[in-house]
């Protein structure tokens, strides 16, 4: 059923991505590929992997942007994946019922056995979250690692999406954004987490945390000049005296 669920639980599982901390190492994208190449959405086909035009399905892509110019300019690494929107048009445009949003936790999934590969859902997503698998003839997307987060065969601390588990700088957090008391909701509140392209009105669940303000150049200069001056050296003879006289000229 591609109509959105009428009865929704309070749970809104999603990711919070800290753009201040991300170093653009692509580990999240690689671990995502590794896990999902063997998970529910497997295989994530790669075509011509060693040839001239390698391309394949990835659920997570890390872009790098420059924002602003001069002293206030920043280089920002920007991981992009499915935002598990509250108003996912990718679901409602699906003609077959293959795309659906789970009522219990808000995760947006594709049932590959129903998908006809018309690609309309990828057109309907402003964020480029869905990628077509040429080999399987169906659409694929981030599952929020549904086969990890509820997997009782894994240790409790491993029940997070692969991208979160692997991030070496802890730039990615996973949790329930529907619970205002959760760690991720607190993070969003404290750091001013925001939606991507709010004008599209898809109401993404995932939030991005902005880069922290830079300590500006004036502050840095003041800190340097506030250091106490060195004690003058007096009356030393020999080699040290020679060096002192040399440096004093």
């Amino acid at each position, binding site marked *: *059923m*591609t*109509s959105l669920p009428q009865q929704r639980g309070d749970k809104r599982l999603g990711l919070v991505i800290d*753009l201040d901390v991300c170093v*653009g190492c*692509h580990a999240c*994208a690689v671990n995502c590929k590794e896990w999902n190449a063997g998970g529910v959405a497997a295989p994530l086909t790669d075509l011509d992997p060693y040839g001239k035009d*390698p*391309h*394949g399905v*990835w659920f997570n*892509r890390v*872009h*790098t*942007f*420059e*924002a*602003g*110019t001069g002293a*206030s300019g*920043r*280089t*920002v690494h*920007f991981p*992009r994946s499915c935002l598990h929107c509250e108003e996912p*048009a990718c679901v*409602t*445009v*699906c*003609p*077959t*019922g293959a795309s659906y949003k789970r009522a219990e936790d808000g995760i947006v999934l594709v049932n590959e056995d*129903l998908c*006809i590969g*018309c690609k*309309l859902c*990828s*057109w*309907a*997503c*402003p*964020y*480029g979250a869905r*990628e*077509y*698998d040429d080999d*399987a*003839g*169906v659409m694929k997307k981030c599952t929020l690692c549904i086969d990890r987060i509820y997997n009782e065969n894994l240790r409790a601390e491993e029940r997070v999406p692969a991208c979160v588990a692997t991030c070496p700088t802890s730039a990615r957090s996973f949790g329930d954004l529907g619970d205002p008391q959760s760690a991720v909701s607190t993070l969003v509140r404290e750091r001013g987490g*925001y*939606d*991507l*392209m*709010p*004008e*599209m009105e*898809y109401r993404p669940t995932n939030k*991005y945390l*902005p*880069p922290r303000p830079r300590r500006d150049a004036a502050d840095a200069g003041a800190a340097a000049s506030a250091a106490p001056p060195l004690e003058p050296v007096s009356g030393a003879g020999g080699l040290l005296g020679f060096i002192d006289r040399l440096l004093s000229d």
Partner: protein
Amino acid sequence: MHPALSVIVFTTLSGAGYGLLGWLGVYAAAGLLPPDRPFAIAAMLLALGAVTAGLLSSTLHLGHPERAWRALSQWRSSWLSREGVASLVTYLPALAFGAAWILDDGTGAPARISGVLATLCAVLTVVCTAYIYRSLKPVPRWCNAWVVPNYLALAAMTGALLLALLADGFAQPLPATHVLAAAAIVIALMGKLGYWRFIDSARLASTPESATGLGGLGAVRLFEAPHTSDNYLMKEMGFRIARKHARKLRILAVVLGFVLPFVLIATAGIAGGVIAAAASLLAVASALIGILTERWLFFAEAQHTVTLYYGRRLGMEN
């Protein structure tokens, strides 16, 4: 957006077929259809043939055409599903209308009633097709008020040209087909010019700044793409056409799709006889090439917001 040949052929051909079917229904309702069996058979074959060829063509771009029947299930939320249902439902009044016209005659009550129903279903199907594009917010050049009238007007225009061709070809006294086609051409051209004017000047809400949320720091530029070769997103959504080529193709679409068919159909209306049949045949051929060009441009000029993540700005082409 990538201009997929199967979808361009589908929307053009089925649009012309539904246009012809729609006009036949209107003429039937007015009691103007001639009770000429070969003419009736040819008209119904042409209308339903174009529709069917278009629908079959549309399944060619699917990853799993054998599952296409599943697309009929989600009509509550999906315009694509509604289009599928509407296109199949249209066959019922269309076949009933064809049977009533061919077996009985075109002026009886069965032909009139089923004709009106066929026209309504044909209009509804074209509206559903247009709304597939109209409803996509990430493609601002599709998500605007011009798209549905454009699709309807172009279907009506190509349908009217086919009707004029049939009337001239079978030397049937079908009234006002040339005037109808000429008027439809003028209306469709005004709609298309309005659409182009709109997409060239529209202010677009989404920018690289809103896509990344980094606008507070200043202008946002792509420094490094996530991958070195084009992925599915760039192949499907990142299609780009140079502005100078777009301008040339627009001129080609206007000349072949509208101006030349108008001159030819006016000639047919004035000349009559064999010359009329030849002129309306040329008008149909020219219009179809022109509208295929127009439809190719409709895709090629449409930009998707995902390209904002790949260093592009909407509304700009080089």
